[in-house]
């Protein structure tokens, strides 16, 4: 074998647990003392396992925990359980609240991966090219975590601390994400991305969340994917737009400022200069779509 794994038929002697409660899962993680890996859909984990990059004594499969599955829409908040799949989220009727999530879930990888890949997996892995993170960032979502002692909630921007690095402690489980409800009469959201091939990773992506008042931009949040170590807010674009008219021209002018807050690198997906140009274009597209969905004119 060339993949460095000890057993030529694949697989290790790791233990495998399938707890049915969050408490039981946290207990397993705690007992393993940092030597356990959480398994949800496995769509990110398995390529790492296949390459021999996962060194674990135990796998804790959280897919049988009912509490972690599904979308809960309350008057003031929307919560998405960690094991909710991309396919489930894409099908869910969140269209009047957070269409950007549907946009992102419909372009992640391909049909097979979307059937199993989960929201919690995307958040816990912390890969800035993952399409779902920018919309969650623009929705000002928080990550919910549990450990044997209790639960906590962390803003996504604080949870994602670097490339593939998060604030999750070894005995903690990501249980879901939550964000404030938008005003369906006045708010719109969208996500736009570009990838070299349809099922490939994003070269760059942009999510916009816009709330309008009398044709003006009352509130706006823009976040970009794949152009920094983490998803990043485009504050310069936001500041340029807020309080002004929600017109094509205003959006075009503001979008030119997208490169100010991003830090792309040269890689096989494209040069940093190309990604700065691309990010500005995608920010513009996502803003125009969000304004339109908010009931504005563009």
């Amino acid at each position, binding site marked *: 074998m060339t993949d460095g794994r000890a057993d030529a*038929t694949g697989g290790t002697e790791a233990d495998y647990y399938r707890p049915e409660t969050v408490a039981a899962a946290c207990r397993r993680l705690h007992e393993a003392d940092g030597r356990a890996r959480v*398994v949800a859909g496995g769509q990110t984990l398995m390529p790492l396992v296949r390459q021999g990059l996962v060194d674990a004594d135990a796998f804790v499969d959280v897919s049988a925990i009912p509490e972690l599955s599904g979308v809960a829409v309350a008057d003031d908040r929307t919560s998405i359980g960690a094991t909710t799949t991309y396919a489930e989220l894409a099908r869910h009727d969140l269209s009047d609240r957070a269409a950007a999530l549907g946009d992102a879930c419909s372009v992640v990888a391909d*049909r*097979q991966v979307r059937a199993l890949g989960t929201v919690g997996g995307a958040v816990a892995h912390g890969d800035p090219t993952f399409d779902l993170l920018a919309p969650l960032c623009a929705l000002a979502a928080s990550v919910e975590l549990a450990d044997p002692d209790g639960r906590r909630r962390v803003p996504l921007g604080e949870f994602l601390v670097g490339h593939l690095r998060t604030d999750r402690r070894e005995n903690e489980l990501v249980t879901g994400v939550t964000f404030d409800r938008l005003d369906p009469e006045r708010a719109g959201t969208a996500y736009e991305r570009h990838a070299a091939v349809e099922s490939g990773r994003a070269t760059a992506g942009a999510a916009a969340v816009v709330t309008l008042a009398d044709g003006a931009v009352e509130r706006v949040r823009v976040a970009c994917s794949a152009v920094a170590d983490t998803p990043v807010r485009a504050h310069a674009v936001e500041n340029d737009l807020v309080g002004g008219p929600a017109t094509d021209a205003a959006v075009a002018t503001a979008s030119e400022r997208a490169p100010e807050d991003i830090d792309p690198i040269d890689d096989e997906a494209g040069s940093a200069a190309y990604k700065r140009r691309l990010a500005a274009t995608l920010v513009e597209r996502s803003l125009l779509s969000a304004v339109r969905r908010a009931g504005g004119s563009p």
Partner: protein
Amino acid sequence: MRVSFDLDGEERTVETAPDRSLRELLREDCDALSVKAGCDGGRCGACTVLLDGEAVKACLVMAAKVDGRSVTTVEGVADGTLGREVQDAFEDHSALQCGYCTPGFVLSALASLDDHPDADRETLRSALSGNVCRCTGYEKILDAVEAVAERRGEAE
């Protein structure tokens, strides 16, 4: 660990390490050789199977997860079903050359047509984007699947 599951209508019980791939389990322990080994990293779709009816890439499914579930390979597609209709359409439209990717394509197409019986070409193209073919250039594959969708659409 021991996993028991339904493979093409037959109950199987296999001793396996939990973190092997379902693709290995199927090919090496169950002789399900229609499940092809391609990239082994989730990119090519040659190992696509139906897990409880949904198309998934067997190389990305941890073997432990199959316990208690149902796996359908192209061998389990019965006469008179939509899956057989898709296979026949591949033949009619010359939608295969070397054939290595074909089982995966047939199962992805089957899952997609189950959801959208009269899907248009663009929807089908997107639904099949997780499967790679290095021979045909895809147009004949899309012709085949689209023909099934058109017949289904007219029948409704």
